[in-house]
């Protein structure tokens, strides 16, 4: 048996000035050819461990380091990062941070040039990498003109071109639509199979990880607290609950079925195919379609787009005849693949772009007549990337910054800041620098900074990106509380599995058009429309459709109930 590719021996690491270790006594061996999943709550140490695999921790960050990391026999503290980088490629969570050149092909060639690979060889490898990630048609484009999904694939290609023995993907799909995420995981499988490349993949995408990885390591406060095959880790309910982790939907569904005595405990699939194959062990499922909760329609829409088209200066048609009414008290989910026009739509709501044709109205009046500052008091916008919005030195200052021009009394200002910090569980961090927090916590800081304005409409662009299960639920529970207070909520997300129970209405966008605007249950189960913009529905929807053609379940609880004897009026 060959030696492991990577060996970590008693690795502990403290960031400069930190009293608490980011990693503690980590022992781990990664054999060649393995696809290893690394999971854990926000701040568990996943990214730090990834960075330790090519020497960035501690060589770039400094701090105190204990133990040893060896990659192909090279000690990470005794070799420069560029030597380790030839063996370990890293793709970061936010690809924007690692794209540095002015064209796609130059981006892929950049690392190779730095490693002094001959020019002829670089050309071959660039072509190979482009083909592997299906970006051949974009080779001359500027990386920043690509969608998030394509940027992620480009970063992947740049790592791939170095032909490293190990590729580390740090939350590679957190910003991607389901289609792009599925492509990335398919690519991981393909490269692993064809090139024998070893992968370490971190993230919260339980269903995809269960499908792809050979082994899962669970980190908690820098320590490895469990490891094993996905079937073992994802069925350990106690462990997952303790670590605020979410199992694949099929696993939680079958756990619920077992708890209700509808299937044996031993039946605990972690993959969709295995779950569907287990149906013969279950009682027959019934149809399930509860009547939808009516939408809020309170007089004049608070926001409305009437037949809006928008064409960017480079000729890209981002919106094509979009009409949407948002009423006070709506909770709307907007979905669609990267490039579907969602961001452009949101920019129209915020008066950040002017429609090429059509009208944008607020309370029936043209929105263009309102200044951006006036709109900011009525419409709160939480952007996808929190780091682009943070610039104050403390969390408290960041949250309170937008109140400054309002000249509120000190007591009112204090009340609003305290309430926003408390709502986002940030009270303990009020004096911390925002960049001392994890990305998930920084996202909550930005939400608090918007919440403090007490706007009528709140627009969340991918609010659960980078959040563990508890963090994502906390944010969505907050949106629910705000909705209950009468606020209008708009959420744009790719994490469809999280939204049942929150959003009532869903708008599906594709190629700049509204493909469907209907109750969320109808949207999730209208597969032909979803397939125009996603390759597959949520696991639960797939399970429901496989169980009974009339079963429109959205949650594990609903699905489990449809196997029980008839007792509710909602069962068809």
């Amino acid at each position, binding site marked *: 048996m060959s030696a492991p590719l990577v060996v970590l021996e008693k690795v502990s690491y403290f960031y400069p000035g930190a009293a608490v270790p980011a990693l503690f006594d980590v022992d781990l061996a990664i054999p060649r050819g393995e696809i290893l999943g690394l999971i854990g709550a926000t701040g568990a140490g996943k990214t730090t461990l990834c960075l330790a695999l090519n020497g960035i921790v501690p060589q770039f960050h400094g701090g105190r380091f204990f133990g040893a990391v060896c990659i192909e026999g090279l000690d990470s503290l005794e070799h420069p990062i560029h030597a380790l980088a030839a063996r370990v490629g890293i793709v970061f969570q936010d690809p924007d941070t690692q794209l540095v050149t002015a064209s796609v092909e130059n981006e892929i060639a950049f690392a190779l040039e730095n490693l002094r690979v001959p020019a002829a060889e670089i050309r071959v490898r660039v072509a190979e990498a482009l083909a592997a990630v299906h970006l051949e048609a974009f080779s001359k484009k500027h990386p920043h003109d690509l969608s998030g999904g394509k940027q992620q694939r480009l970063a992947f290609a740049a790592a791939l071109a170095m032909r490293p023995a190990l590729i580390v993907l740090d939350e590679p799909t957190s910003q991607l639509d389901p289609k792009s995420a599925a492509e990335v995981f398919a690519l991981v499988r393909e490269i692993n199979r064809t090139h024998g490349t070893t992968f370490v993949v971190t993230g919260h995408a339980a269903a995809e990880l269960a499908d792809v990885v050979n082994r899962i390591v669970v980190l908690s406060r820098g320590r490895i607290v469990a490891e094993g095959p996905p079937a073992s880790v994802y069925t350990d309910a106690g*462990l997952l609950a303790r670590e605020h982790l979410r199992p694949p939907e099929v696993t939680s569904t079958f756990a619920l079925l077992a708890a209700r005595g509808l299937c044996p405990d031993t039946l605990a699939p972690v993959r969709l195919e295995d779950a569907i194959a287990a149906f013969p062990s279950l009682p027959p499922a019934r149809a399930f379609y509860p009547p939808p909760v009516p939408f809020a329609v309170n007089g004049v829409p608070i926001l409305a787009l009437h037949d809006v088209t928008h064409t960017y200066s480079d000729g890209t048609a981002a919106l094509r005849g979009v009409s949407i009414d948002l009423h006070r008290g709506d909770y709307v989910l907007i979905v669609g693949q990267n490039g579907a026009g969602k961001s452009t739509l949101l920019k129209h709501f915020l008066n950040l772009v002017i429609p090429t044709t059509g009208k944008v109205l607020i309370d029936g009046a043209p929105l263009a007549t309102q200044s951006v500052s006036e709109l900011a008091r009525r419409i709160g916008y939480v952007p996808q990337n929190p780091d682009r919005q943070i610039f104050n030195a403390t969390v408290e200052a960041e949250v309170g910054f937008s109140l400054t021009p309002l000249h509120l009394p000190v007591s009112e200002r204090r009340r609003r800041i305290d309430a926003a910090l408390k709502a986002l569980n940030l009270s303990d961090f009020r004096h911390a*620098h925002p960049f001392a927090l994890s990305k998930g916590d920084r996202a909550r800081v930005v939400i608090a900074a918007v919440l403090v304005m007490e706007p009528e409409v709140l627009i969340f662009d991918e609010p659960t990106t980078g959040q563990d299960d508890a963090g994502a639920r906390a944010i969505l529970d907050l949106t629910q509380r705000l909705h209950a207070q009468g606020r209008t909520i708009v959420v744009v997300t790719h994490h469809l599995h999280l939204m049942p129970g929150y959003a009532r209405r869903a708008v599906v966008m594709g190629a700049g058009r509204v493909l469907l605007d209907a109750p969320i249950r109808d949207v999730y189960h209208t597969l032909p429309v979803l397939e125009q913009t996603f390759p597959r529905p949520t696991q639960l929807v797939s399970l429901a459709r496989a169980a009974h053609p009339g079963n429109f379940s959205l949650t594990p609880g609903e699905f489990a109930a449809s196997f029980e004897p008839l007792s509710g009026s909602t069962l068809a």
Partner: protein
Amino acid sequence: MPDRPLTAAIPSGPERTVIFFGSASIAGAPVAYAIVLSAVVTALSFIPFSVVLSAGSSFPMAQGIYPLMGWLLGPWAGAVASGVGAIVGVFLAPHTAGIPWLTVAGATMGALCAGAMVPGRRFWKLGVGLSVVAVLAPLFYGDRAIDRNGVSLRLFLLAYPTHFFAIALFLLPTRRWIGRLVGSPDLKRVAIGLFLGTWSAAGVMMMTESAISYFLLNWPGELFIMFAAAVPVEHTMRSGIGAVVGTGVIAGLRAMSLVKPRDAVY
């Protein structure tokens, strides 16, 4: 599957010496840092911040952060970052460049002065050298203005009280005290250190630049009356820029746990 029990936070592995192996560094500061910070200097070179009579054009906002380069990167890498940023700024933003070569020299000197403001005896030779310049500059300038061009001593002194105070801060042990303030964990003390440090380093820089400019331009004596009003305002703005920008940058750098350049003071 048994969970591993959590143990007390005493690492069982041997502690290792952490060394930055990257060869691309300037006096212990990663070249990447110098590049980023020189880009900041260039960007701020576009912003005119006041009418500087002595140089015949506006002064760039970047003047407020030349010293910051010295505290962030150390004197040598700071001087490189500041100088390179100023050179690029001279070409891209000529409306704030004044006398181009003097602008670049001043940017370099500002960072050197700040980098020499360190606790202890580090960079004492650099401090002595800059102190000599700081003393000679007003002497030559005054000699030329008073003895050759007939400017009154009283007017000359009235025009530059800020810079004389700045030079005094640099010559006295306050230089090392400012370095301690900038390195303080308390951000309020950091802000005070940055304000006084920028006041001192930019004062030495400006006095030297003004002396050289005067030898080149020999502006009329009446202008010294306007200096008496304008220079304190400008210098306060310069120091304010250094304190505001610097405190934010230092707070951010400390929070982000990036590797600290060897000679950085923060």
